């Protein structure tokens, strides 16, 4: 049983490290998401971000395809990182629960 606990502890340490790495990656990327509004048949782009618990909106103008793609790629990247980070956080929760389980601890 000690062998299994050792493996669980190692997996927990790995998941925590991975979560830290994902947080660092997210912090490197610009904040906010791009939203599109149609006004009088024209598309206008806004950057929406949270600051001091408030949602702010900054007008980006009529973006050309190149700049729009750049913002969309960043949004897509953030979405993927957040999805993976949530997965890892669930793993950490499960591993912590297993390691703190009294039956497993008493069997060790």
């Amino acid at each position, binding site marked *: 049983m000690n062998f299994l606990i050792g493996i669980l502890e190692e997996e927990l340490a790995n*998941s925590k490290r*991975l979560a830290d790495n994902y947080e660092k990656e997210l912090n490197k990327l610009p904040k906010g998401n791009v939203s599109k509004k149609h006004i009088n048949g024209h598309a206008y782009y806004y950057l929406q971000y949270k600051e001091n618990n408030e949602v702010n909106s900054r007008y980006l103008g009529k973006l050309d395809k190149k700049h729009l793609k750049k913002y969309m790629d960043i949004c897509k990247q953030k979405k993927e990182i957040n999805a*993976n980070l949530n997965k890892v956080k669930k793993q950490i929760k499960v591993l912590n629960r297993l390691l703190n389980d009294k039956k497993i601890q008493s069997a060790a």
Partner: protein
Amino acid sequence: MIRKYNLLLKVLKKLDEHNLLDHLVLIGSWCLPFYSNYYEGIEISSTLRTRGVDFVFPLPSKIKEKLDVPKMMEEIGFIVDFSNSGIIRLMHPELFIDFIVPDRGKDLPSPYKMPNLSLNSPAIKASRYPCKQYNRN
């Protein structure tokens, strides 16, 4: 487990695209499903399998081209992790990949730098075990 296996197949495909599979050995518990597949009909007892996948680069390396292995793995969703000792590891919620070099004879520096692959690998002492020859007939 199927997700992990499918991700490993993606890793192998990516390595194969850059002709690296000929220069690598998959070791550890993750090589067993492939042995089981290869030696069809021979039962290989299951072992405990964690998320760690180990690849060994035999030395001396015969890879002449300059390749960025961490970047290849980033393209399929892995993230690069640098340990305090400088060892590079590729991490994904489903799998962690370690590229290892065998430390035979004289002690190799660890991490062992492979600049043509953009890797810093741990050098691990390897033992040689006698292998049973499986008769496929």
